[in-house]
């Protein structure tokens, strides 16, 4: 089931990040081939590959490329989202550190497909080593004449805000503004960075492109499921024997990933729950892990593939505490632009915190669920919907754990009256 490693095939070679090693293993041959292809033919090949965005939203990549307005004559920008910030996700940093030329080659091909002369790579501020490695690779590519011949790459460092990984927040930040997501429409493909049509793709997504060009869309599609082609890199963390990044077909099941690749559950050895796609993905119980890890498989299971950050929790993990940590993250990272998200992420965190601290009230759980549902779908970007995933799923699937804490608080409330309503 794990099959051939494509993105990670060079990771174990010494100096895998260098141009020399990249070339030895067939690097930049896809770019040579792509230069003989019509831009539209490249896009068609990517469509045929069923490649879907691997940053979180899972949107079909070739379809996204085809949204550039026909007849547009000004600049078109290719923006690479390397602001990997989804908790539990650490795959893009490996690509930037260990195979940066795969991203550069993918960018060259993608830029040809969308007729872009300038690419921006927005690197998460905390990723210092990935930024150094990738910057060095860009310089190599300039010296070797891959870049600077009709396509330039600008490397931009973020300043450490999760919201700048949202594609329009990223564009605002890239433009020198506060990293606030933009109101849509217009979508970036129509009016993006600096007012020009812009395609924003994830590092891993674009790193796949050279292989699709070399080996064909049909080959790539055959590696995955009916609606999503290829492999992807799963970041597995938490209570497993061998945490780390694993490349596997998107068709792998969550059970295979945890038990076959990551060596099974540690802690008390018994699985309690798994977050399959980064912190924004709704949690799955131990009896829900026989699901394929592709976008539609996880959607059908009521959660999402997201960024493929798999967080494993054994029975000793407190779900209310886990939710408190997640809720604190969303309260801290909400950009504050839209009212429902700005106000309720903090409110919900305070409620969950209070429950964990032993001051919960019996109406708290229903209030959290109601507040989360009311805010969902009412904001400019998907941040709040991402926060709602854990709020609702942790409480619905592990309600007894929360109630136990609240009931304990109830006995104490005799001595310590609840604060007055206000």
């Amino acid at each position, binding site marked *: 089931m794990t099959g051939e490693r494509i993105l990670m095939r060079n990771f174990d070679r010494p100096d895998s990040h260098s141009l020399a090693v990249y070339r030895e293993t067939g690097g930049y041959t896809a770019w040579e081939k792509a230069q003989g292809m019509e831009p539209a033919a490249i896009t068609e090949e990517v469509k045929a590959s069923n490649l879907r965005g691997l940053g979180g939203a899972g949107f079909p990549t070739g379809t996204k490329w085809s949204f550039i307005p026909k007849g547009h004559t000004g600049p078109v920008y290719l923006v690479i989202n390397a602001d990997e910030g989804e908790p539990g996700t650490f795959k893009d940093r490996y690509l930037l550190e260990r195979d940066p030329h795969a991203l550069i080659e993918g960018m060259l091909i993608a830029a040809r497909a969308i007729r872009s002369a300038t690419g921006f790579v927005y690197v998460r501020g905390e990723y210092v080593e990935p930024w150094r490695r990738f910057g060095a690779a860009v310089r190599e590519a300039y010296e070797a004449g891959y870049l600077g011949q009709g396509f330039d790459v600008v490397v931009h460092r973020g300043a450490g805000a999760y919201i700048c990984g949202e594609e329009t927040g990223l564009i605002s930040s890239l433009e020198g503004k506060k990293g606030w997501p933009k109101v849509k429409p217009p979508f970036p493909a129509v009016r993006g960075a600096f007012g020009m049509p812009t395609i924003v793709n994830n590092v891993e997504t674009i790193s796949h492109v050279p292989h699709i060009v070399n080996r064909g869309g049909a080959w790539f599609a055959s590696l995955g499921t009916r609606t999503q082609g290829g492999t992807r890199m799963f970041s597995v963390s938490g209570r497993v024997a061998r945490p780390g990044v694993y490349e596997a077909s998107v068709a792998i099941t969550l059970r295979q990933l945890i038990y076959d690749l990551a060596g099974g559950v540690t802690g008390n050895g018994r699985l309690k729950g798994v977050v399959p796609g980064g912190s924004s993905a709704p949690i799955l119980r131990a009896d829900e892990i026989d699901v394929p890890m592709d976008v539609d498989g996880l959607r059908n299971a009521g959660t999402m593939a997201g960024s493929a950050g798999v967080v494993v929790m054994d029975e000793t993990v407190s779900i209310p505490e886990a939710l408190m940590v997640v809720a604190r993250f969303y309260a801290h990272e909400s950009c*504050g632009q839209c009212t*429902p998200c700005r106000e309720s992420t903090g*409110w919900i965190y305070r409620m969950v915190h209070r429950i964990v601290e032993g001051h919960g009230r019996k109406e708290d759980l229903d209030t959290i669920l109601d507040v989360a549902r009311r805010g969902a779908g009412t904001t400019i970007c998907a941040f709040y919907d991402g926060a709602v995933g854990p709020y609702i799923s942790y409480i619905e699937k592990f309600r007894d754990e929360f109630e136990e804490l609240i009931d304990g608080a109830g006995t104490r409330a005799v001595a310590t009256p609840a*604060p007055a309503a*206000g």
Partner: protein
Amino acid sequence: MPKLTIDGKEIEVPAGTNLIEAARQAGVEIPHYCYHPGLSIAGQCRLCMVDIEKTPRPTIACNAQAADGMVVWTETDRVKETRRSVMEFHLINHPLDCPVCDQAGECWLQIYYMRHGLYEPRMTDEKVHKPKAVPLGPHVMLDAERCILCSRCVRFCDEITRTGELGIMNRGDHSEIGLFPGRELANRYSANVVDICPVGALTDRDFRFQVRVWYLDSTKSICPGCARGCNIEVHTNRRRPHHAEGRRVARLKPRYNADVNRWWICDAGRYGYGAVDDKSRLRAPSRREGEAVADATWEEALAAVAGTLGRLEPDEVGVIASPRMANEDLFALRRVLERRGIRRVGFRVPPREPGDEDAFLIRADKSPNALGAALLGLDGDVAAVLAAARARQVKCLWIFDHDLLAAGWDEAEVDRALRAAETVIFTGANANATSERAHWVLPAAAWVEREGTWTNCEGRVQRFRQALEPLGQALPTSDILGRVLAALGVAAVPPRAERWFRDLAAAVPAFAGLSYPSIGDAGQPAARGAA
């Protein structure tokens, strides 16, 4: 022109109209905070949600353009629930300090809570605390806890004044409006942010704690501060005279006029009403003999003025009219001049300091009606009038409003002219160094105490209305001049400003066809070719 249906009403709107404006045209009000028609779309308050048929969930109306065949519903259960939710989110961290908040009574949190909220509060945790009573500049005070972060003020400073003093600092529920380091909100239009702030976050340092807004009356008026003639509302406090140290004018607010000032006014105009309730107001006619000044009755004063005018030869009278006078006053004055054949007249008095000007609203000419006076033919040479007085050719000087001793002329020269004239008459609302030199003072009503029209720098004739009773025995200048005319033996004198304007429109080609009803609230252009 797309045709669409909003709450079952079919309307046609210009292409590019958003759904808030389209609904307004259909008589449907969509609640909103961050949207302002003069600013860019922010889409962040999330209150203006509506249901558009064939879209899966409620959409913000501010960012949705009207499209042909669109079917919009603004009162579905889903929309109402969303509004209730958004109102709750807006208020969970709000201090709910309405009893001590100046915005109370005109606060859109209060209004929309009553219209669209009415939920049971369930926020029991500690609220987020933020800075309070932070002066942002000379006119604006910030209470960050009351702020709903709609960003209107930020966009105003970015897009209208392009001064960029304000930003939103921090993230999440710790976000707050603030000044960039080293900046002050001191641009010349700064207090407009108070008007567009939908809540009590930004308050006016001049107005706060003076009087509750529900005691105020509002009157449509025109700013007298410069030749732009920005449309304003005068807010007066007649019901709580013991508040605000007896200030009758509580504040001025901009009034929308698409052709003049849109939604805005400058700070100089906004705070330029101090003279109305100032100690320098002239309350009764008075007479000066030597150093002795004594109040007089109107009968005495008018008899003396008419007697002087009737006794002297026309060339022995010089008149210095004022571009602050209403068109009605100027026309009445013209009738006086015609009656006596007086030709030594002018109104342009150079200021000591040249007025400042910008490319937006502020004009260098700090008077509201210079163009009106020119259109009425009063554009003679004032310097020549004063020179004639110094040469003792002019025996009576009648000065309106001006302080000639504070003008851009040599003070000694003016002084010699005033000394040389046998009779100096002053008509104006406030005392000044020139009025103190007058033998007769005829107190005029301030602009908010009467009605009239001014002609702005673009030739737009605009009405201002009466908001207050004149102080003391002061009278509108057109009334004073009417009484002088009557004393000079003219039989049919118009009894009030509107009748003066009717006569004016009949007599002066530039004003032909205009009337108070046709001028309305937005003004009408004068026929400038006829000047």
